[in-house]
């Protein structure tokens, strides 16, 4: 009996070598567990930043363990810590259309210097209400959100150039430029796609829309910048070059080839700087969080610079690409551009060198709305034949290999860039979307692992009713063959992801905010500075929190309908000692206040009564004692304003105005 499982195991390992497995157990070989085991107290090797899709957030996992480390609120409200609810952060979600408290977050890109991760910022796109966010990697906090005008479906975003000169935003849904009211079926005449280039300040990370390139109405799907020799170029995949505005499932799948749009962004930059662009009135919101004052500064911008390829020769070219390409990925050398035609039965690989000589030699097959279309064969390095069904995305290991996800045939295929031969294939469970190799879209991939972010979960975990967590799968790519190591459930619906070695971020992770540098206008610098101030119907409560009491913790003289602002300063200066703050019947959220921070919750009591408030984040042995009361009296009554912690009734009384 003892030998039996061993035999079974050996048999299954052989089976895996010999044919494509669709069976879960047979796909995992013996040492997988030890390769993902991170002992208690030990740290993971990589930070894995994973887009949240329809939850609008970004989650952070450790690799290889697949453990969830944090969820960073970006485009969606987060009642858990008050992001988007607190007075300090609510304007982060402001747009030109008002407050938009949710979005669909698809892609992430870590900032780069010389084509390698520099560990400074993480950029995130919002697909639904077009926006791009910047997250600081010392605090893991969203610092800036800029809205993209003249755009719908900001999908081919937020991919960046090699020195983070620009973050791009390309429209999946073409829309009319400006504000003209036009019929939907005038798509061909009036709808445009735009590729926006957002400049990033080298020192502060501050974003600014530098220019928008106006392109014919079509769907810009994904994009990646060139590298090394192709540094000056950006490549966007397109579909719906049929320009359908209804039943795209059929009508946008008519042509055998769509395009890869090749944009010379250096040239575009020159045109923009030399005044070749037209100024177009366009309203968009720009929200910047200030770490010192802990407030969001929201500014409405009113204009963009639009570059029309008609006025800007040699700026944009089209490369035909079969069929409805999705991923548009550039290999680490910058020479090869992979278009993954999701309805094609092959993978075309384009050569940057060939593209350049085709442009020099004007080897065009025609034009698309005036933009030269390079002959397919003239730009083609070659095709990967019969790779699988439904190629979507490609990542690279830096050793000359590419890994492409296949949605329809549910597998990852490893192939050689040079000779375009398939080397290995491994099933995914099920229907993989994006892939991620750590550093896999930079000049220097770290390799080692590959994560498949699957779209369909089915039977992978214990069932949880109709809605299931999306599954991610970790593979080792160290050997010739891919080895499935681990399944782990994820938060939201991950699309693209990034990973960076832990040692590039961990040492600079911020532990506390220095309270002596707290410039929030409502800070209480110590309990002595706490107070309650009435101004008409507005009441400002300057409160402090420290293990384990709130000051003031007794407040009287508040009336129904008052706008009460609790400005809570956490006086702690120790790592991992946040305090929470919640008040009964508050109609919004709680606050989580990090050490040294001041955060504000607005509360409008609608009924007379006693309102307990308390710390929600277990902070000490006396956490359960960290509570207080606010007395709310009927409007028109004459209860004087009174507040304090542990003071005799007569003390610290101020008259109500």
């Amino acid at each position: 009996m003892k030998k039996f499982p061993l035999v079974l195991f050996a048999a299954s390992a052989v089976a895996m070598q010999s044919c494509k497995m669709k069976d879960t157990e047979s796909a995992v070989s013996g040492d997988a567990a030890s390769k993902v085991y991170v002992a208690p107290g030990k740290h993971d090797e990589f930070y894995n930043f994973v887009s949240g899709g329809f939850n609008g957030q970004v989650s952070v996992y450790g690799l290889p363990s697949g453990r969830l480390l944090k969820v960073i609120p970006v485009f969606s409200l987060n009642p858990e810590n008050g992001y988007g609810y607190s007075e300090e952060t609510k304007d982060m979600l402001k747009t030109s259309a008002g407050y938009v408290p949710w979005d669909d977050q698809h892609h992430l890109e870590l900032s780069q210097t010389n084509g390698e991760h520099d560990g400074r910022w993480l950029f995130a796109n919002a697909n639904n209400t077009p926006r791009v966010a910047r997250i600081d990697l010392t605090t893991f906090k969203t610092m800036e959100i800029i809205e993209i005008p003249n755009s719908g479906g900001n999908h081919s975003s937020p991919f960046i150039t090699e020195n983070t000169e620009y973050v791009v935003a390309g429209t999946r849904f073409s829309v009319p430029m400006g504000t003209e009211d036009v019929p939907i079926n005038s798509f061909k005449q009036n709808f445009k796609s735009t590729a926006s280039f957002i400049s990033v300040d080298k020192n502060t990370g501050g974003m600014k829309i530098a220019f928008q390139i106006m392109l014919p109405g079509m769907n810009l799907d994904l994009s990646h910048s060139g590298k090394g020799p192709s540094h000056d170029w950006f490549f966007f995949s397109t579909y719906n070059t049929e320009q359908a505005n209804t039943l795209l499932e059929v009508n946008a799948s008519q042509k055998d080839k769509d395009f890869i749009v090749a944009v010379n962004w250096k040239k575009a930059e020159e045109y923009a700087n030399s005044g070749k662009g037209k100024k177009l009135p366009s309203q968009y919101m720009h929200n910047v969080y200030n770490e010192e004052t802990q407030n969001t500064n929201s500014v409405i911008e009113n204009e963009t610079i639009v570059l029309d390829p008609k006025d800007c020769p040699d700026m944009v070219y089209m490369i035909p690409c079969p069929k409805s390409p999705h991923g548009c990925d550039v290999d680490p050398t910058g020479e090869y551009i992979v278009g993954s035609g999701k309805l094609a039965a092959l993978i075309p690989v384009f050569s940057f060198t060939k593209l350049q000589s085709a442009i020099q030699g004007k080897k065009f097959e025609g034009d698309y709305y005036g933009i030269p279309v390079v002959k397919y064969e003239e730009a083609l390095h070659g095709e990967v034949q019969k790779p699988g069904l439904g190629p979507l995305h490609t990542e690279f290991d830096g050793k000359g290999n590419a890994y492409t996800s296949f949605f329809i045939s549910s597998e990852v295929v490893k192939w050689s860039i040079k000779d375009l031969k398939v080397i290995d294939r491994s099933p995914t469970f099920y229907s993989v979307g994006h892939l991620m190799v750590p550093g896999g879209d930079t000049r220097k991939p770290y390799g080692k692992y590959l994560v498949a972010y699957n779209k369909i979960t089915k039977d992978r975990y214990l069932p949880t009713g109709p809605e299931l967590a999306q599954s991610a799968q970790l593979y080792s790519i160290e050997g010739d063959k891919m080895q499935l190591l681990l399944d782990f459930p994820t938060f939201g619906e991950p699309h693209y992801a990034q990973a960076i070695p832990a040692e590039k971020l961990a040492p600079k992770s911020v532990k506390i905010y220095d309270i002596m540098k707290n410039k929030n206008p409502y800070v209480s610098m110590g309990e002595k500075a706490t107070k309650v101030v009435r101004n008409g119907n507005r009441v400002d409560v300057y409160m402090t929190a420290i293990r384990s009491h709130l000051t003031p913790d007794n407040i009287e003289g508040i009336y129904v309908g008052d706008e009460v602002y609790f400005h809570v300063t956490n006086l702690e200066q120790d790592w991992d000692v946040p305090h929470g703050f919640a008040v009964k019947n508050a109609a919004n959220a709680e606050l989580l206040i990090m050490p040294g921070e001041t955060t504000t919750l607005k509360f409008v009591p609608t009924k007379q009564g006693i309102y307990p408030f308390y710390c929600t984040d277990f902070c000490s042995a006396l956490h359960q004692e960290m509570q207080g009361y606010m007395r709310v009296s009927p409007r028109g009554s004459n209860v004087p304003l009174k507040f304090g912690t542990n003071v005799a009734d007569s003390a610290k009384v101020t008259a109500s105005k």
Partner: protein
Amino acid sequence: MNIKTIVFIALTASVSFASCGGSNEEKKDTTQTPPPAAAAPAAAAAEDAKGHGKFTNVELTHPIDAKMASAGEKVYDVKCASCHKLSDEKMVGPGWKGVTDRRSPEWIMNFVTNTDEMLDKDAEAQAMLEVCMVRMPNQNLSDQDARDILEFMRKNDGKN
């Protein structure tokens, strides 16, 4: 309890800590701090009176340094006053009146800058923890902040 017993308890505490501490780092710390058991008990007690940390010899000035004392008061207001009164009344932590008589200058500065290690190893700090039942938060004081605080405590105790 005489001094010998205190030292004995302190040593036992650190030995048992070393034996259950998991990481090498912690072990390194503990092996450095306690003096060998065979050393003269009086010397060990003197060490102990200074607590655990980098401050081994603090020079006091007479009269007190008014500038430092006033800087210390500012730090006190923001980082200490929530829990410590200036009288001898205990709030969350003990009142500060008389603290400079109860503790050595080194012990005070070590405790306010190296709080966690002191709470883990120092017998006096642990005895206070049993009274207060709240671990004193590490308030991230700089060395100068700690010196300023000490001067403010001396002022509060009427020292000159």
